[in-house]
């Protein structure tokens, strides 16, 4: 009798999951350090062109302007490429005001070094880009960065 009982006690102990939180926390900290908060959701298609002579962008002094065709959820805005700033579509005439607004939100010592990051879909007409650039010249924001994907140099 006693022999059987002893066997009963010898069941496998539950597997300890104590290290699982540690692993997940490790992942969590990695993501917290390596990423930044998403600032605006894109309402346009945004496939960037690629280039291999790229420089790094300084995030702190950049205003982003997006352009491209409205994406599938925003079909009601038509199929013509549109300009997006923050979370709204703007017209070419509004670019100047938007840039001033963007500059105003920046800290003072960076205001003179402002860079406008142009994230433009690669299937957009270059004419729209030159319209934006013309507006930027009027707003005296003369440094632009054409944001591109890094292409591998052969």
């Amino acid at each position, binding site marked *: 009798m006693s022999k059987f009982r002893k066997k009963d006690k010898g069941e496998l102990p539950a597997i300890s999951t104590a290290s699982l*939180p540690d692993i997940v926390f490790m992942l969590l900290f990695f993501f917290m350090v390596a990423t930044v908060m998403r600032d605006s959701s894109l309402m346009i298609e945004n496939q960037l062109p690629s280039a291999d002579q790229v420089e790094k*962008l300084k995030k702190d002094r950049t205003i982003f302007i997006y352009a491209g065709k409205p994406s599938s959820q925003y079909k009601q805005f038509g199929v013509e490429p549109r300009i997006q700033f923050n979370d709204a579509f703007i017209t070419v005439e509004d670019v100047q005001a938007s840039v001033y607004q963007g500059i105003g939100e920046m800290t003072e010592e960076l205001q003179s070094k402002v860079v406008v990051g142009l994230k433009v879909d690669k299937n957009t007409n*270059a*004419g729209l880009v030159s319209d934006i650039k013309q507006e930027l010249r009027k707003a005296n924001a003369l440094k632009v960065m054409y944001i591109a994907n890094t292409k591998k140099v052969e």
Partner: protein
Amino acid sequence: MAKRAAPEVNAGSMADIAFLLLIFFLVTTTIEKDKGLLRSLPPIDDTEVEPPIIRQKNLFTVNINRNNQLLVEEEEIPITQLRQATIDFLDNGGGTNQAGESCDYCKGKRLEDSSDHPDKAIISMKHDRETTYEKYMDVQNELVAAYNFLREREASRLYKKYYPDADKVFTAMLEEKEKNQFSKDEVLNERIETIKKLFPMKLSEAEPDKK
């Protein structure tokens, strides 16, 4: 009194909480990877001064039409040849600059009908409104690549001794400047300026014609 082992704390829910946080961060954040071509636009000039006349041979015209075809110096070429053509033009060194110095560092063919001096050489780019942005960026990239190639060449000629391990000397110099941006390194800045002066980037863009 019998010694009792402390009961094990159940940590199962901790993993759940951590997962929740992890998923939150996964969806609300993006990994920074923005890179691009940095260019300066010309300021708006409303003075009525006549622009100086540029001799045709110092001007390198690049046109892109609405079908994304490339016309360089009145000749249609594929984009793969653009970089070399630009380098040849900038590096020609056929004459002298404003100060009357000839380009002693140019390794070009010194043709009579190409640019006099990198100082005078101007690239003029023009595109149609219907040109796709992708093609426009490809061309920009090639033109910048030509300048970068020449600047790298001069940088390794002049300053290779300070950066013996660097693959690309000019890039290494720029990176070093980036690293000590809070402590100005006069010597380094001066060297970078020297290189930039040897091949000043003169890339002008004409506005596309309004239809």
